[in-house]
């Protein structure tokens, strides 16, 4: 039986191997990402987040170790396209990944490349547009959209391929708060309603708190891993790793320390409000 998951075993990646400026970006990573999961990856600049992401759809190959996507090794040259269809990718800058002159053409681009019939193509484009809630912009020109809308188009282009995994590398870094919420809402919906596995790289702790599992990378290794409420309560370790704690969690920890009966595992404003209502 083919196992439906991404399996990473002893993955190391070294840039400029055997040269003077050799850098170990990933150092012996072992990890499994099950279908339907929502995993976020955090870590300081240069911790290996993007390098790891690029291994998931063969943009980079391991220097040593292996990755299997649904049982297919990414080193298998004949299966590269199969893997890339399975693992969609969305990058930071929406302007760099939009290729066509209308929204629907842009979403259809990947489908055209794999030779899908026109009928199926229309169906999938419409479905993807509906999922990202952009139907009314079908005929619009992408460059006239806002940043958040452009990112949603990029996401639609990836899911139109019927990928089971979606890797997003800081998709909200260039967006304003409104655009961020827009994109985050769509991602949660993809995960919960369409059962698409999400691998989400971010610098924003509030966003990572939305996932099921947080992986903290440091110098190419996994420093912490677990449910967000477990990871974010390790304030000292996170600060040492140059990371932050969501404001609400920090507040919960401080108030808990002062003797208030507030769970230190508080991640959401709503939970905090409920606790505080008992006191003030």
């Amino acid at each position, binding site marked *: 039986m083919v196992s439906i998951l991404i399996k990473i075993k002893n993955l190391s990646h070294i840039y400029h191997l055997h040269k003077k400026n050799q850098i170990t970006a990933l150092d012996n990573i072992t990890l499994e990402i099950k279908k339907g999961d929502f995993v976020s990856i955090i870590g300081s*600049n240069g911790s290996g987040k993007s390098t790891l992401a690029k291994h998931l759809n063969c943009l980079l190959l391991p220097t040593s170790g292996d990755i299997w996507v649904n049982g297919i090794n990414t080193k298998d040259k004949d299966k590269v396209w199969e893997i890339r269809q399975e693992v969609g990718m969305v990058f930071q800058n929406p302007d760099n990944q939009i290729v066509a002159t209308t929204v629907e053409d842009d979403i259809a681009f990947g489908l055209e490349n794999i030779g899908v019939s026109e009928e199926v193509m229309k169906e999938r484009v419409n479905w993807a547009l509906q999922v990202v809630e952009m139907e009314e912009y079908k005929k619009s020109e992408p460059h006239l959209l806002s940043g958040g809308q452009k990112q949603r188009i990029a996401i639609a282009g990836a899911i139109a391929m019927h990928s089971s995994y979606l890797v997003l590398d800081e998709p909200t870094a260039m967006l304003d708060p409104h655009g961020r919420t827009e994109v985050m809402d769509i991602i949660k919906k993809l995960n919960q309603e369409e059962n698409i596995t999400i691998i989400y790289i971010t610098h924003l702790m509030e966003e990572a708190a939305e996932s099921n599992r947080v992986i903290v990378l440091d110098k190419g290794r996994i420093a912490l891993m677990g449910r967000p409420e477990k990871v974010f309560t390790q304030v000292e370790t996170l600060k040492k790793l140059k990371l932050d704690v969501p*404001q*609400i969690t920090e507040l919960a920890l401080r108030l808990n320390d002062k*003797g208030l009966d507030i769970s230190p595992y508080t991640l959401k*404003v709503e939970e905090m*409000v409920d606790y505080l209502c008992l*006191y*003030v």
Partner: protein
Amino acid sequence: MFICLENVDFTYNLHMPFETKALKGINLKINEGEFIGIIGHTGCGKTTLIQHFNGLLKPTYGKVYVEGLDINERGVNLRLIRQKVGLVFQYPENQLFEETIFQEVAFGPKKLGLSDEKIEKRVREALKMVDLDYNFYAERSPFSLSGGEMRRVALASILSIRPKMLVLDEPTANLDPQGRNKILSEIKEIHNNFGITVVLVSHNMEKIAEIVDRLLVMHRGEIILDGLPREIFEKYADDLIKVGLGLPQVTRCMHELKAKGKEIYTGVLTVEDAEKEILVRVKRFNKQLKI
């Protein structure tokens, strides 16, 4: 007064099919020594506005004065204006081009025609301001640095011109939390120690609101709010949400408590503020609690 904008309008592609009004009737006064933050939705005109401060853009209508001088009048020495108002663009690390960090930071002073001795002094001074050790960094290539360090080198290369005013467009975009905090605390120190007027543009409002003395909120080409960060967060939370800005988590928490009829001060910006405010209230309502 250092900078004064009077009824400034700016339109991109004027009289063309894609004409877009980016600024509408802006009136703004910036005094020497102020520390100002500008926040707003993408496309609200923040970047267009700051490009008026040193004459990179000329208003379609209205006037811009720097130290009382109308900078768009014929014959004004714009070079001099740009020495006074140093602009650090978005992703300034993309503008690095020299072989060593020394050369990079020395570029501005060299163009000012200073002697080698003075140039070195300025480079040392500027690197110190951004907390980069001269001996360790001067001869290294700027391209061997981390993103945060590159950004600080870019900042140093503006500081070496000794501007009276520093304008930074999204200085924290794409940095990890530590890099973000470091560059902001350096900017704050530069402001405190050297009295340089600072304008920070960002949509990461949590950190910005914490360090600036005055906050401007822009929406669709207009300045809709102008005041103390605390006051804006306390009284205009709804307006901020309406223009797509949202609130920091702790501020939102206080507003939601207030909406539930709790008596609480909502002008909090930091976790420390929130903690203090909550403890005061808790003590008042639960006298038996020992905290």
